[in-house]
């Protein structure tokens, strides 16, 4: 079986260049001086070069046989007994989609950053981190084995931490960075344990060989016992939940908005947070061995989607709304993974990368124009003052809300369809409600920001301006992608059908045939979802344009629920109470009792005993030679006495 696939491996000599270009950009930015504009050219250029190489590689792949993949062995990393790991890269259909998203959207965000961060006194450091992130992310999606993926996985986590705390002068930014890092450690612990168990469990079937190559995993995963597969899958899910911000580890993502907005767009919306989705899609053979684990994945995704969407309803910080929206959309992707529609999850990763990057960059443009204001209650009426931002933001809102024909419409409806047709009626209901809420909170955000009257201070209002072209052009390109990006994944039998699904099928497998199509076809589901999305948008229109007093009345009448949502279900407070506080108490105890009193007490006590002994015996050291001479004499007498008496 292994040999049959050998013919499909096309050896490439250029794959290593894709991650290396951003690494070079990183090194240049590290060496560069903040004052001159070199990094503003080299950093985006490095990513553009990666994109060009990636695009050329992917195009060379499309002409090959179905299921072919590009492969480059760079370096034999570890050989230890039966264990072997290489630095090797691959581009198959799944990596191809991811690498194009990462480099393409990444390049646009780099260009945007030149405008957004160009005036920051530390912009060389910013671009250094950003390029280092690109390097790590490309290792993650290009790696041919789980170890290279893991190196990238940790690398993006590090860059995420560095960039969230980029403005480290403010304590809360630094704290948000630490929170992201620590919460991700919890997830990574599960991920690492999953990897160990996976490697170890595959060994018997592979004649004792220990390997983390994807080909190895794919070839032998079917030999896993169901219980083992369940444990491995759930451990990997813990890792994915950390990285992709699922319940209960999502808490770091909203706080991560402390970083500069392009970072939120690149890392915390378009690329890094989808690493968990990519990892599960990549290891779908393992997850498919355990229906239980898939059920857990689907349920977790649906619950996260609904949970985050409800919080997003009442948030007033423009970036917080988008952050919870991201958590919610990631929940959709995890739901798709859980119902076995792996290609659909990747499809949603792609469309989400387009419209969520667009929305974040649009929000950044608004914040830029509003002199740093992020509270939507102080915005309004920006439609005329920032026309490009407005129109592109509108496109992003329509795309995420699922307006027919736009990117989010096709990917989201495909998720709903697969959820329904695989028999998860309850999860489908949750997802549909979430989609409705999505339309509501996104239009609420749009109306509060761009319609009505400007509610800012006079000073801020006076300075409101459209962003420069270097920022608006990426917005326009992303808006175009948000419009047409969904057309690669049309439902079956429509025009050219699901091209992306067919492209990914050799890697992710074909989704299960619709067993539960029942009375409702895909078209009917689409109609339901679209109607509900329009209802959500209309409700937002009524609330925030027609009857602007209504939300206040409602929030007063339903203040219990309103305050619970506004306080994000008080999950942070709960974690504080059950984890952070006991942990701090334990640490303080270990510090003040075990360390200071026991360990230091023992060491200092030993030293004190020696000192006391010395104090006693120093009396013998009189400094008087005659006393010493007497001691000599005594010694001589004793020795002589010994010889005489003996």
């Amino acid at each position: 079986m292994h040999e049959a696939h050998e013919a499909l491996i096309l050896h490439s000599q250029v794959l290593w260049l894709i991650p290396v270009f951003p690494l070079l950009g990183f090194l240049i930015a590290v060496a560069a001086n903040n004052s001159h504009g070199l990094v503003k050219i080299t950093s985006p250029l490095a990513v553009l070069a990666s994109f060009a190489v990636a695009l050329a590689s992917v195009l060379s792949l499309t002409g090959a046989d179905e299921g072919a993949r590009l492969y480059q062995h760079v370096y034999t990393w570890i050989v230890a007994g039966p264990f072997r790991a290489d630095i090797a890269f691959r581009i198959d259909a799944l990596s191809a989609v991811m690498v194009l998203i990462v480099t393409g959207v990444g390049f646009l965000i780099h260009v945007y950053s030149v405008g957004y961060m160009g005036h920051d006194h530390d912009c060389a450091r910013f671009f250094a981190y950003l390029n280092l992130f690109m390097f790590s992310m490309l290792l993650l999606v290009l790696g041919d084995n789980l170890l290279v993926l893991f190196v990238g996985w940790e690398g993006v986590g590090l860059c995420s931490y560095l960039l969230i705390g980029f403005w480290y002068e403010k304590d809360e930014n630094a704290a948000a960075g630490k929170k992201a890092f620590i919460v991700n450690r919890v997830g990574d612990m599960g991920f690492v344990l999953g990897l160990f168990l996976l490697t170890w469990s595959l060994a018997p079937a592979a004649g004792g060989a220990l390997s983390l190559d994807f080909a190895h995993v794919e070839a032998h995963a079917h030999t896993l016992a169901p219980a083992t597969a369940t444990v491995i899958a759930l451990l990997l899910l813990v890792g994915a939940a950390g990285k992709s911000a699922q319940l209960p580890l999502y808490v770091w993502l909203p706080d991560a908005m402390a970083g500069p907005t392009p970072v939120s767009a690149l890392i915390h919306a378009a690329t890094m947070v989808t690493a968990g989705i990519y990892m599960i899609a990549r290891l779908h053979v393992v997850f498919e061995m355990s229906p239980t684990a898939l059920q857990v994945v689907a349920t977790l995704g649906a619950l996260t989607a609904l949970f985050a969407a409800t919080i997003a309803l009442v948030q007033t910080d423009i970036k917080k709304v988008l952050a919870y929206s991201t958590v919610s959309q990631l929940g959709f992707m995890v739901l798709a993974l859980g119902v076995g529609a792996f290609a659909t999850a990747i499809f949603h990763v792609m469309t989400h990368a387009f419209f969520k990057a667009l929305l974040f960059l649009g929000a950044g443009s608004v914040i830029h124009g509003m002199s740093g204001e992020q509270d939507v209650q102080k915005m309004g009426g920006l439609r005329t003052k920032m026309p490009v931002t407005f129109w592109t933001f509108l496109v992003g809102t329509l795309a995420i809300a699922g307006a027919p024909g736009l990117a989010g419409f096709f990917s989201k409806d495909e998720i709903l369809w697969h959820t329904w047709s695989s028999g998860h009626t309850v999860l489908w209901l949750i997802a549909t409600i979430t989609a409705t809420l999505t339309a509501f909170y996104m239009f609420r955000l749009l109306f509060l920001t761009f319609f009505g009257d400007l509610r800012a201070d006079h000073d801020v209002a006076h300075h409101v301006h459209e962003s420069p072209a270097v920022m608006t052009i990426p917005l326009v390109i992303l808006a175009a992608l948000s419009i047409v990006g969904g057309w690669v994944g049309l439902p079956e039998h429509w025009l050219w059908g699901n091209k992306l699904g067919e492209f990914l099928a050799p890697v992710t497998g074909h989704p299960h045939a619709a067993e539960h199509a029942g009375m409702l076809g895909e078209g009917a589901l689409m109609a339901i979802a679209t109607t509900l999305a329009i209802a959500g948008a209309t409700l937002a229109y009524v609330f925030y344009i027609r009857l602007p007093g209504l939300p206040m009345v409602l929030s007063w009448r339903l203040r219990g629920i309103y305050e619970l949502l506004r306080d994000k279900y008080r999950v942070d407070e709960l974690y504080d109470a059950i984890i952070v506080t006991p942990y701090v108490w334990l640490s303080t105890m270990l510090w003040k009792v075990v360390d200071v009193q026991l360990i230091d007490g023992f060491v200092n006590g030993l030293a004190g005993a020696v000192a006391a002994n010395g104090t006693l015996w120093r009396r013998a050291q009189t400094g008087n030679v005659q006393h010493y001479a007497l001691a000599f004499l005594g010694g001589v007498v004793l020795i002589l006495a010994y010889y005489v008496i003996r």
Partner: protein
Amino acid sequence: MIVPTEWVLMLSAVLFAIGVVGVLVRRNIIVIFMAIELMLNAVNLTFVALARSRGAVDGQVVVFFVMTVAAAEAAVGLAIIIASFRNRTTVNADELALLRG
């Protein structure tokens, strides 16, 4: 007339004991120094007495070494005492106790 070796050894022991007592009880370091010389010479006397009684010259050779070294020791020792006296204006051993713990 020939003095018996035992008598010489006894004299040597008495001289040595006087030297030891001098080192231990006198306060003036010059006297202590002289007492040390006395101990050295008591030992020398032992060497020559035994050398004669055994009819061997080894003991006499050692005595020459001891005398040479004692001469050098006297020069260095007196120089140290003089230097110490210049700094401390005392030759009292009780007052020269800088190394008291």
